[in-house]
């Protein structure tokens, strides 16, 4: 068409006008650290595996004929977990969920049920028999792991994946350590435990049971042994003893041995009334176990108040549901046959319990002491360079003890004593050992900034309250050791996964692409995480993309003059 001069113009000719010159700030895509990942002691990339989980396996929503059939996204999610943690099914049951405490969604409606999704994926992996990817090339290095608890097995798993040959030696008759001897069945069914341990062993880890290591140095090459390095994680299995005046016939035992014997011996006779002395998770486990062993009454005697109790709330709740009673601000002054003398306490201004001189009686056929555990440090006794403090081994940031090549983790080093922490130690130790064996010092990748709630634009997320996991009726709990907390089915797990807001990381919502007034966001792919580029020829730096990014994955940075 012959166009009249100036009055009529060629379409799209304004592309010659590069408005990028107007810009004083430029948007850049960033990856910030989601609070869940930040909080996970096992260092899981939770946001990532939830992202995979969102798509579901045979996702009806995706089976609309567009695109090729999806690979089982649940498996991808599971593999993502396995990169950091070999025990999703166990985690999904026994972890105390610091991730959910940190979850930003908690500030919107309710935290994402990360733990329940993890359990679902872990169980799926067991049921569907998902296999792990093959290990890296063998390094020819041999590593000894002392202790087949969560920490040791985690280390063995990671070391094997890194190509090292691992032998695990454990004094016990069964692998699993505290996971088996400290956590009752009703919280962690043994078939689950066995399945996940077996999966690790199947990778080619050598396990020696009933094998107590007496001379660690002798095992190492330096001592003429065959191992190039060792990771010691024997846990803390020795129940603390406190002096309690008691009559001869008083029946007193410690919680650790109680739980241990419930697992592998004839269950001890506790009587109708059981008193548990202590305020930690173990105390509650002991009390709940007592109920299951037939005790009509299980009383927890604790010196302080509930809010000062070290035990986790879930445990307390479940214990109360099961009829366990509590005696706050109380100490056991004297134990006798069939009864205890309790002294009432009061908290001073520092919150420390002080005796009041008031006494009362409490009928109890048996007293179980749950006053904490000590680690058996014998294996490291006399090893040159290894030092101890406060009943634990001193280690560096890389978990190496004072002795080159000997690393330690789990309950025997200073840290919170949970399975998750232990598993995290295992991974950390494995990486440190790998680095040490290669003569390198492991450099920590710089931690990205935390993806806080204020960085999100939550309007874009559909309103979705959390899912409640099914629970075994309290009445049916006390009789059996059946698992108390149920799991999610595929749809509810999918639902939970999709409640993730993908904090700090692009999830491919196209908002930046859609909301740019200058069409300065280019779509480089079908619309997934990172399928976008800013076209700085035209971007005026208005910042709408950053403001409207639901998950805070775009930052505005000043233009350099």
């Amino acid at each position, binding site marked *: 068409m012959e166009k009249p001069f*100036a009055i009529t*113009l*060629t*379409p*799209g*000719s*304004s*592309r*010659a*006008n*590069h*408005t990028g010159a*107007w810009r004083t700030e430029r948007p850049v895509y960033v990856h910030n650290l989601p609070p869940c990942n930040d909080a996970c002691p096992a260092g899981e990339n939770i946001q990532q595996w939830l992202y995979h989980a*969102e*798509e579901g396996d045979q996702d009806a*929503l*995706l089976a*609309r004929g*567009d695109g090729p059939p999806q690979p089982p996204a649940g498996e991808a999610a599971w593999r993502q977990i396995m990169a950091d943690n070999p025990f999703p099914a166990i985690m999904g049951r026994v972890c105390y969920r610091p991730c959910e405490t940190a979850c930003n969604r908690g500030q919107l409606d309710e935290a994402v049920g990360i733990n329940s999704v993890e359990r679902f994926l872990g169980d799926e992996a067991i049921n569907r028999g998902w296999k792990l990817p093959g290990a890296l090339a063998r390094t020819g290095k041999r590593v000894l792991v002392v202790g087949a608890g969560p920490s040791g097995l985690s280390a063995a798993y990671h070391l094997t994946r890194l190509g090292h040959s691992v032998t695990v030696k454990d004094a016990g008759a069964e692998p699993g350590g505290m996971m088996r001897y400290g956590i009752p069945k009703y919280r962690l069914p043994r078939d689950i435990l066995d399945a996940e341990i077996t999966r690790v062993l199947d990778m080619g880890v050598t396990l020696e049971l009933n094998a107590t290591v007496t001379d660690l140095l002798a095992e190492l090459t330096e001592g003429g042994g065959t191992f190039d390095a060792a990771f010691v994680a024997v846990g803390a299995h020795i129940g603390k003893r406190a002096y309690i005046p008691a009559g001869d016939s008083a029946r007193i035992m410690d919680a650790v041995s109680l739980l241990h014997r419930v697992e592998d011996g004839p269950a001890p006779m506790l009587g109708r009334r059981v008193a548990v002395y202590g305020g930690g998770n173990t105390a509650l486990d002991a009390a709940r176990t007592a109920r299951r062993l037939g005790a009509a009454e299980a009383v927890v005697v604790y010196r302080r108040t509930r809010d000062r109790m070290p035990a986790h709330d879930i445990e307390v709740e479940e214990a109360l549901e099961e009829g366990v009673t509590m005696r706050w601000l109380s100490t056991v002054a004297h134990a006798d046959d069939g009864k205890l003398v309790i002294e009432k306490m009061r908290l001073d201004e520092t919150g420390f319990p002080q005796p009041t001189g008031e006494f009362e009686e409490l009928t109890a056929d048996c007293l179980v002491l749950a006053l904490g555990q000590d680690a058996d440090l014998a294996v490291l006794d006399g090893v040159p360079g290894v030092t101890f403090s406060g009943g634990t081994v001193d280690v560096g940031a890389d978990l190496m003890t004072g002795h080159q090549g000997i690393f330690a983790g789990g309950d025997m080093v200073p840290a919170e004593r949970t399975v998750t922490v232990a598993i995290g130690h295992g991974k950390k130790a494995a990486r440190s050992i790998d680095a040490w064996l290669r003569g390198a010092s492991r450099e920590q990748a710089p931690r990205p900034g935390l993806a806080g709630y204020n960085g999100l634009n939550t*309007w*874009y*997320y*559909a*309103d*979705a309250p959390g899912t409640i996991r099914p629970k075994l009726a309290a009445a049916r709990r006390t009789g059996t050791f059946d698992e108390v907390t149920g799991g999610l089915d595929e749809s509810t797990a999918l*639902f939970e996964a*999709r*409640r*993730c*807001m*993908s904090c700090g990381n692009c*999830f*491919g*919502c*196209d*908002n930046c*692409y*859609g*909301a740019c*007034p*200058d*069409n*300065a966001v280019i*779509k480089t792919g*079908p*619309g997934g995480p990172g399928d976008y580029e800013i*076209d700085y*020829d*035209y971007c*005026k*730096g*208005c*910042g*709408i993309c*950053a*403001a*409207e990014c*639901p*998950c805070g994955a775009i930052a*505005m940075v000043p233009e350099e003059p």
Partner: protein
Amino acid sequence: MPYQRIKFYQTGSFAAGNRLLPADLRSVQSSATRANTLTCGHRACQGCGEALGARYALDAVMRATKGKLIAVNATGCLEVFSTPFPETSWQIAWLHSLFGNAPAVATGVAAALKAMGRGDIRVVGQGGDGGTVDIGMACLSGMFERNDDVLYICYDNQAYMNTGVQRSGATPPAARTATTPAEGPEPGNTFGQGKNVPLIAMAHEIPYVATATVADLRDLEYKATRAMDFHGARYLHILVPCPLGWGSSPADTIKVARLAVESALFPVFEAEAGEVVSATPIRRQMPVTDYLRLQARYAHLFRPEERTDVIARIQASADRNVSRFGLLQDHHPERTRLALNGHLPAEGR
């Protein structure tokens, strides 16, 4: 593509795209092959809501008409920033004539297409609030009254921005403009003035009238698409914040529009043949102050001291919208219709 709130939960239900949705339920704007009717290089301000709204609406219409579209533009910001010689940002057949005649020019285009047997080509007329509710009102009403086959889109930024932010018939009460300065006992625009063109359009009983904002892309696209299901005169009124005129941050353009809706100051609804058939419920009602505080044009309501009296009147009008359009329940067309037609008690009357 019927507009629906996403019935299943996943991240970003309300975002432009979402990989979890089947392609046909994703927005036009999320498509890599969208028309980009208004393309790069235009001279709109940073964070221009009108540039955004125009591309949102016309891209949706382009998809609905399979590209058979002619657009007619009134004089104003949109026209000036999109077609300064020698460059145009339009990638569609586009005509600009005058400030006050866009609806009539669009009528002429539609009539010509009919006469030439090109009914497959559809016509959109568009302009800002000044060109629509003020100087273009006669032509707009005439187009409505004749029920000409034109979709007219008003990009409402509530003042004459092109000429330097003077008051228009769409400027809200208390807002500061160059001609309603924040002076005297009743600073800003006077209460009890201004006209509600969507309701005026409904009074013509034309096939389709709807309001939308740049804050809810899916809703906007649905309405632009729905409008093309009808023949005859249709009217789409889109709220497009103007960082310059409203004194808001360019980055907040969409946020401000969202607050206008969530505070109920801008009711989002659609009407067919003069009857309201749906009102988009507010997700989380916000006090009007959340909306006002983001905009320098309302600064005088908060400094030197807070004008609680004025704010109360503004809140009252928001509350009236809530009851009038039933914005707080999931939409009940019947109730909304009754309220709108004055059969239900409405607050703030």
